[in-house]
């Protein structure tokens, strides 16, 4: 390794301040998710993989904010968030059950400069469940740039019905693996080295996004295949999934 994985002096990714966004479209692609499309005035264009913060304010001034990955590409006139509705989710529950088109939301973004694909290098994307959201942005960005050839994608989901963007992912050539139902290409089960061998090529950057157990498992499979750790970028969400 000639330079550390996290070198100093990297180029700063775009970052934007607080904006009052207007909800233009809202739907529920799966029972557990809500898709919110926002018009953001004076928007700072994002890189695929970046996220936005949504901040809600109650009448008495109480506030809650959470970060969500963008699914949209920079060329999309709207900003698209795909939010998983968590049990007792203070912000996700509001977005899933209360928000209507025309509502205004405080948002801040784009944020984050690590888990980004800049559109000019080969990448392997490995997503679990709603961890596919930043990869949807990458696929759409690649399509805009005419560089869909740069991306390979493997997705793990419990069942197909629970996976948002299923049709779009499949149309882009994603390998969709299921852990709780037969998939037609293999028995149900966790992501294995055999699933990734056909997709991995030296020189790819590898992006892993999903729950902590998924991310841990997927990065172990990848390093076991010989993927150098510095080539792997990880984004995790949700509880730790362990007793620690």
């Amino acid at each position, binding site marked *: 390794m000639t330079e550390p*994985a996290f070198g100093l002096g990297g180029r*700063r990714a775009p970052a934007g301040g607080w904006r009052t966004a207007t909800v233009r479209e809202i739907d529920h692609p799966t029972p557990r998710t809500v898709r919110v499309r926002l018009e953001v005035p004076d928007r700072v264009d994002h890189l695929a993989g970046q996220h936005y913060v949504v901040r809600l304010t*109650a009448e008495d001034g109480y506030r809650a904010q959470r970060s969500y990955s963008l699914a949209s590409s920079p060329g999309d006139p709207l900003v698209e968030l795909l939010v998983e509705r968590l049990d007792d989710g203070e912000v996700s529950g509001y977005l899933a059950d209360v928000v209507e088109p025309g509502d205004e939301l405080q948002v801040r973004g784009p944020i984050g400069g690590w888990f980004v694909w800049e559109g000019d290098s080969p990448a392997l994307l490995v997503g679990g469940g709603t961890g596919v959201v930043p990869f949807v942005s990458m696929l759409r960005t690649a399509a805009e740039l005419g560089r869909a050839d740069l991306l390979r994608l493997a997705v793990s989901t419990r069942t197909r019905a629970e996976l948002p963007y299923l049709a779009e992912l499949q149309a882009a050539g994603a390998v969709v693996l299921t852990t709780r139902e037969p998939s037609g290409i293999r028995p149900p089960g966790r992501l294995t080295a055999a699933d990734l061998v056909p997709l991995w090529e030296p020189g790819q950057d590898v992006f892993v996004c999903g729950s902590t157990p998924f991310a841990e498992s997927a990065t172990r499979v990848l390093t076991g295949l010989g993927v150098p*750790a510095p080539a792997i970028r990880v984004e*995790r969400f949700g509880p730790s999934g362990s007793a620690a």
Partner: protein
Amino acid sequence: MAGPTRGFLGRSRERDPRLPPGQYDTGKDWPVLTAEPTPRISPETWSITVDGRVEQPTTWSWDEAHALPRSEYRGDIHCVTTWSKFGTWFAGISVDSLLDAARPTGDAHFVMATSKTGYTTNLPLEDVTGGKAWVVWEYEGGPLPVEHGGPVRLLVPHLYFWKSAKWITRLTLMNRDQPGFWEQNGYHDRGDPWLEQRYQGD
């Protein structure tokens, strides 16, 4: 500042006074947030080095670090992703023990913490001195779990937790501030949860 969000009620307002603004209590859970594969580091190959603007650059092995006076932290931790965890218990050594030996020079004002993975985070020197920062290898009386930075992590609990670098191996004293990993990527250079210093410009 914008007004209220239509129809948003939020959780119960019986706010625990231990919660900084915009944070929620994660309860028993301890979410894992790292940007890189979890490294497997054996204690035999781990060491901690203090260098840069110091009179005596020094490296301690696992055993040498354990021979320094034991120091504990009992209290709360706060992650920029808005969870806080109350009543944690960590043990290891005080960063003061390391700095006392390495002796920062008069022009040292900032610290860059570096992990085995190459992760970096920058801190003002005054935020890691005076009993405010630790190098820890125990959590709740057992070994620090690897996904939480084991075998050894930095602990700076009065700042957002990305400053508490996992898998810590080096503290470099600097006379001028430089951004670390998340700080280059839009996050705040200091990260005080009570001032909500989440992002650059906050």
